[in-house]
């Protein structure tokens, strides 16, 4: 799936200070019945965002007007559970380009990277700093620089670097996906099958 090239982002961030945010919370199973990749953002965190009468739940950060931006900050072990790529689609579709946590579940991380959503792993201390910065000032700006692989709290200048493998970095920066790469390899794959 083609997605926008990732360029340096400066933005405030939305905090979801909960641990083990699983993919059933990010997008509940009952919203997985679509056959196209559209509109999942509306149901992002559905059951935390809306009550059973479909009224917004005031306490949830996505419903709080003071929070905005392209960066979602989650507690540790973000994205555990199912392999549903709809979780990454929902976060992207809602308008986020970056998810920050101290720890991501493997499949979620891979899915995010395949869809132009950058997972940024920071230390738990730094994650706490980000949360308290947002609490102090919800409009506080953060910078995510993919080229330099840094996440910066702009008000204080505090910064941490994050890891990303060079191949995935290249893909994100250029909006490329793996499928083109693999399709180009079909001959080599066929030769591999022969040799097996």
């Amino acid at each position, binding site marked *: 799936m083609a997605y926008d090239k990732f360029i340096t982002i400066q933005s405030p961030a939305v905090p979801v200070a909960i641990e083990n945010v699983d993919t059933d919370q990010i997008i509940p199973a009952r919203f997985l019945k679509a056959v196209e990749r559209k509109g999942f953002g509306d149901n992002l965190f559905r059951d935390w965002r809306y009550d059973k009468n479909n009224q917004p739940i005031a306490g949830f950060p996505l419903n709080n007007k003071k929070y905005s931006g392209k960066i979602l900050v989650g507690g540790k072990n973000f994205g555990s559970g199912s392999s549903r790529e709809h979780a990454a689609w929902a976060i992207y579709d809602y308008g986020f380009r970056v998810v920050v946590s101290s720890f991501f579940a493997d499949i979620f991380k891979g899915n995010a990277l395949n869809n132009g959503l950058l997972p940024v792993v920071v230390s738990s201390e730094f994650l706490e700093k980000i949360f308290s910065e947002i609490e102090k000032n919800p409009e506080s700006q953060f910078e995510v620089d993919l080229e330099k692989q840094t996440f910066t709290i702009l008000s204080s200048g505090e910064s941490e670097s994050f890891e990303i493998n060079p191949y995935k970095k290249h893909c994100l920066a250029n909006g490329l996906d793996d499928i083109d790469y*693999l399709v180009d390899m079909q001959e080599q794959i066929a030769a591999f099958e022969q040799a097996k």
Partner: protein
Amino acid sequence: MEARTLFDKIWDSHVVRKVEGGPSVLYIDRHFIHEVTSPVAFLGLKTRGLKVFRPEQTTATPDHNVPTVNQHLSIKDELSRNQVEMLKRNCEEHGIVYHGLGTEGHGVVHIIGPEMGITQPGMTIVCGDSHTSTHGAFGAIAFGIGTSEVEMVLASQCIMQPKPKKMRITLNGKLKKAVTSKDIALYIISKISTSGGTGHFIEYAGTAIESLSMEGRMTLCNMSIESGARGGMIAPDETTFSYIKGRKFAPQGAEWDKTLAYWKTLKSDEGALFDTEYEFDAANIEPMITFGTNPGMGIGVTQNIPEGKELTGTDKTTYEKSLSYMGYKAGDKMAGKAIDFVFVGSCTNGRIEDFREFAAFVKGRKKADTVTAWLVPGSKAVENQIREEGLVEIFEAAGFELRQPGCSACLAMNDDKIPAGKYSVSTSNRNFEGRQGPGARTLLASPITAAAAAVTGKITDPRNLMD
């Protein structure tokens, strides 16, 4: 030669190319697809003008959102019906074998693969479903993938993957009465946490593991993902070989002997190194039950909910949020708590052995009036076997009714939803908030512990009712 793990042996022999500074291009032997995570992948192929590269290596079945009653009728829910029909059309268009509702081969993807002998040692197996780890029970590298990767496999029979780290979990000793592989899984996750396996592929070893049946091994490998691991595997042995022999897609004749010789090489070499190792004693495991909203929040059925006094910060608020969702208090005793629903099924515990265990327990007893029970076989073959073995009569005499195969209340995409606030003892794999329906409260357990709850209407130590 350097000592290698079972995982290394299989992985290395499937690497088509190593991308510099990046992942490996990994060749995939077997691919399973279902109605929920495949449509967007097929759409992607269409947009790119591609055909499926190796259609004969993909097997399809609708399982996630199918009804578990009246499967001979058209599916009522329009969106579900559309997804199922779309899967069928996509398969027809691309020449993929499709096992539709009501047919011999229908069932939950992770149940039908092994049943038909499609799942074999030494293979790489993927599916757009995290519990693909189930197939690792045969000594295969099997793991769940996202829809983009489903599209990659359809387009090239390969995916791009970084090589995970390796973990070995050794379980020696003898399992106690009423302790099953589900309890082993819940015990291990309660010890290493739901993120303890992240970045790793697990190999299970030890005498207690070797003593498990194939069904038991599948249950254990199935739950690997709940510890955060990509998958789990067990070296193939005589139990594995005799399970596979004679199944529809198993190698036959001379081919069998040749393949068997290869399968016998599939084990970790003496001295092979693992990045992480754990060892547990089987004798310490009790029948388990979960009390919170992730599979790591499990305890022995006789124990009290931990106080969590050592927790601070978001750990503490997350723990409190979880207990408040469940309507429980720290320190509560689990045994004796009333329950409303029992679900037996899913790719974790929806195999014939699970129904045999459930039947053996409820035989001559009666379902509690306050309990609604859903018994959902994992496949048509399991359903048929339940009938042939006369288990249905036992269920019916005890007040239970058998439904038709599918994922059902495991993820509640169909009508099998647990109502808000109700307690469900479930043999499935996830107790996340809302997993079994909005507001549903899930307690994960083995089929035996589920049976004890079903006949008493409350959480009960099954050993109290066994001789």
